[in-house]
């Protein structure tokens, strides 16, 4: 079974070109952080309440990315809120994406191709060996959104991190997403980690807008 982190990264791969797509680059970085925290929660290593995060079990999971984060959480006792950890892990966003891509390549789900654009710029692509795995993720997401029944825990988590970084647009068309907006919001709200990820993205958007705004002297 793929980790939540691998599923989010796989969802961001363009099935036609193998390029990594992102409608909101910074949002995606926060989604990766959310995915790692969900993976640790699903592995029974951490638990959260409305604000804080607790380490339940320090024993390694066997996944190098998760174990690196878990070991760091065990060391940094000064950071104990969900928000603290989202901001802290956010700094490792490039590692998270790279490690998830490497794991997907190792599992034979993606291939790695490197080429030059205009003979100079390196372009990396990750074509899928088969779209079966990505399709499986998309079907689960679509089902969780389209139906009114309670989804499986993993699917609630997946919707709630795919939404804030704009990845749901690759699963369903905009009109259908608009019709199911209330359902999506409801699913996103169920998990503390998702609520904090959404808040972090909103805060970052605000900061970037302020930085981009013309200064009046």
């Amino acid at each position: 079974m793929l980790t939540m982190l691998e599923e989010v990264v796989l969802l961001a791969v363009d099935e036609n070109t193998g390029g990594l797509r992102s409608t909101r680059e910074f949002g995606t970085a926060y989604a990766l952080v959310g995915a790692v925290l969900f993976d640790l929660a699903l592995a029974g290593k951490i638990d959260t309440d409305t604000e804080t995060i607790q380490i339940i079990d320090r024993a390694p999971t066997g996944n190098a990315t998760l174990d690196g984060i878990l070991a760091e959480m065990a060391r940094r006792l000064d950071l104990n809120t969900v928000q603290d950890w989202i901001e802290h892990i956010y700094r490792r966003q490039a590692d998270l994406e790279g490690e998830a891509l490497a794991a997907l390549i190792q599992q034979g789900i993606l291939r790695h191709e490197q080429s030059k654009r205009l003979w100079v710029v390196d372009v990396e692509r990750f074509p899928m060996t088969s779209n079966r795995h990505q399709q499986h993720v998309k079907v689960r997401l679509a089902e969780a959104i389209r139906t009114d029944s309670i989804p499986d825990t993993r699917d609630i988590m997946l919707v709630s991190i795919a939404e804030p970084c704009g990845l749901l647009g690759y699963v369903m068309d905009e009109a259908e997403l608009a019709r199911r907006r209330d359902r999506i919001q409801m699913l996103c709200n169920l998990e503390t980690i998702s609520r904090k990820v959404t808040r972090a993205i909103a805060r970052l958007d605000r900061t970037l807008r302020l930085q981009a705004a013309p200064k009046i002297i």
Partner: protein
Amino acid sequence: MIQVTQETRSGWYVVAVRGRADAEAADELEGALRAAVEAHPKVAADFAALDYISSAGLRAVLQAARAAQTAKAEFAVCSPSARVKKVFDMSGLHHVLQIYGELPC
């Protein structure tokens, strides 16, 4: 750690939960509620003596509610303490579950 007691009252199978529904207790909570909804048509989870619920505890309740949907059983969460109700409110759980201030029986 939780303590679970169960009894039938006026057609409802009442699962009363006492203690802290955290990661340590989540499997036990989900197991008790799941077994109840799979065996009884009307199940009330009495949370009056539940002091605390974490995300893992919340997921356990949600997955029990999911099992109730599959089993076509009626499932209600009742009498949550103020602290637990606050968590339910923040999560918007009332959109997914029937939450009653008192036991329906």
